């Protein structure tokens, strides 16, 4: 029992890094995704094409390859990122492609009549977006974004491969010392589960709150 507790406390030392990877990657992705989603629904075909191409490339390459490119590849340009920096940047780039598509789904969930009404009321484009479209798109975006974040939290384990000291890296190191891989990785799995669960609950609560507040009666 004391062994399990000791293992747990050794593994939990990586929790901060895991959270930093997931939150950092998600926030970075969510910011890059804004202009990307805007370009994706733009009326200029060239912008739509560029954004679509970026999204396909970002999503079509395995995360581990992205991290290798950023961590090992950039050294050729005398750019040596720390493992944490490369991992956050890589996860940010990858999530930007997915989150852009989530934004797009949110935007297309807003009935066209809403934008028409804003136009007919002579609202400037920015007001129309900020006060009419965005709050309604958020209702569709929240549950998708939370689900994506939980996925990212787990996928951030890939950063351990380039040396980020996250939960998985801690568990890996411990398993080599203790030679009890089953217990060690079971504990690591449980830690991921324990942090995912409240996030999922929070996401469900937030999504329901937004939906009930802003539901449209047809």
């Amino acid at each position: 029992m004391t062994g399990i507790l000791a293992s747990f406390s050794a593994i939990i030392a990586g929790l901060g890094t895991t959270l930093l990877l997931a939150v950092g990657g998600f926030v970075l992705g969510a910011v890059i995704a804004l202009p990307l989603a805007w370009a994706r629904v733009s009326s200029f075909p060239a912008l739509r094409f560029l954004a679509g191409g970026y999204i396909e490339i970002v999503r079509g390459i395995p995360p581990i390859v992205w991290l290798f490119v950023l961590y090992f590849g950039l050294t050729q340009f005398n750019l040596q990122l720390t493992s944490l920096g490369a991992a956050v940047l890589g996860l940010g780039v990858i999530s930007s492609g997915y989150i852009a598509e989530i934004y797009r789904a949110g935007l297309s969930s807003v009935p066209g009549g809403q934008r028409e009404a804003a136009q007919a009321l002579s609202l400037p484009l920015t007001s129309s977006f900020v006060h009419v479209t965005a709050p309604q798109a958020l209702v569709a975006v929240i549950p998708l974004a939370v689900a994506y974040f939980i996925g990212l939290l787990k996928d951030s384990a890939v950063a351990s491969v380039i040396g980020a000291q996250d939960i998985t890296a801690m568990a890996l190191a411990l398993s080599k010392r203790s030679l009890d891989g089953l217990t060690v990785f079971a504990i690591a799995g449980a830690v991921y589960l324990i942090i995912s669960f409240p996030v999922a609950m929070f996401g469900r609560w937030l999504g329901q709150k937004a939906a009930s507040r802003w539901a449209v009666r047809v």
Partner: protein
Amino acid sequence: MNVAMQQSTSPPTAAAESRYAAEAQNVTVEFHGHKAVDNVSLGIAKGEVCAIIGPSGSGKSTLLRTFNHLQEPTSGQILINGRPTVPGSRKPKPADLMQLRRTVGMCFQSFNLFPHLTALENIMLAQTKALGRSKDEARERGRHLLERVGLEAKANARPSQCSGGQQQRIAIARALALDPEIMLFDEPTSALDPELGAEVLAVMRELADSGMTMLVVTHEMNFAEDVAEHLVFMADGVIVEQGDPSSVLRSPQQERTQKFLRAVNGR
């Protein structure tokens, strides 16, 4: 048909002399080669209520929507108080459109209230963001307009907490908040049962009595006959017949009008 078309086509006049608050001149709207509106000219006098009736797909809503450029005409032009909505250039600038839509208000068949805002906030939004009124001013004007449509008690209710009829009355108040000179109504009661429709029509009647220039696409023949001064029957993208509502409804001259009215009256 040609006679009616010619009557409605007015010669180009100087802006100051225009007797029309709103006018469509030779407006055509094409969708993928199909002419939804085919070279239609129509003038609405100041203070006049003009009702457009006709079967589905006749182009009446499309024509209505060209008056505030929610639908861009493929050719032809719209004049408001004798002035073209798009001065000179072919493609309207956002500033032109915003100016136009402050003068020409609109209500939709499906209300299109903003579901995340209360009734009062719906009415305040464009006042503060498009007209630059202060929040206090917009709130006061909003409350006054809610009172006018009989819904002061619903100021803090969200659209989902209001009946369809109440939502449409809020939508009318929202459009009126910009002090438009002309109001467009696109089948405002079609999504409502007769009882709820009646409360919306009562508000529109009051608006007409106050002297508002109104263009109304409708299936409400009683409203068209009682309230409108000018009735237009459209089919297949053209104006088939127009004139005094009672004469068009009671003794239509064109065969197409007769056929439509027979179907509407169930005879």
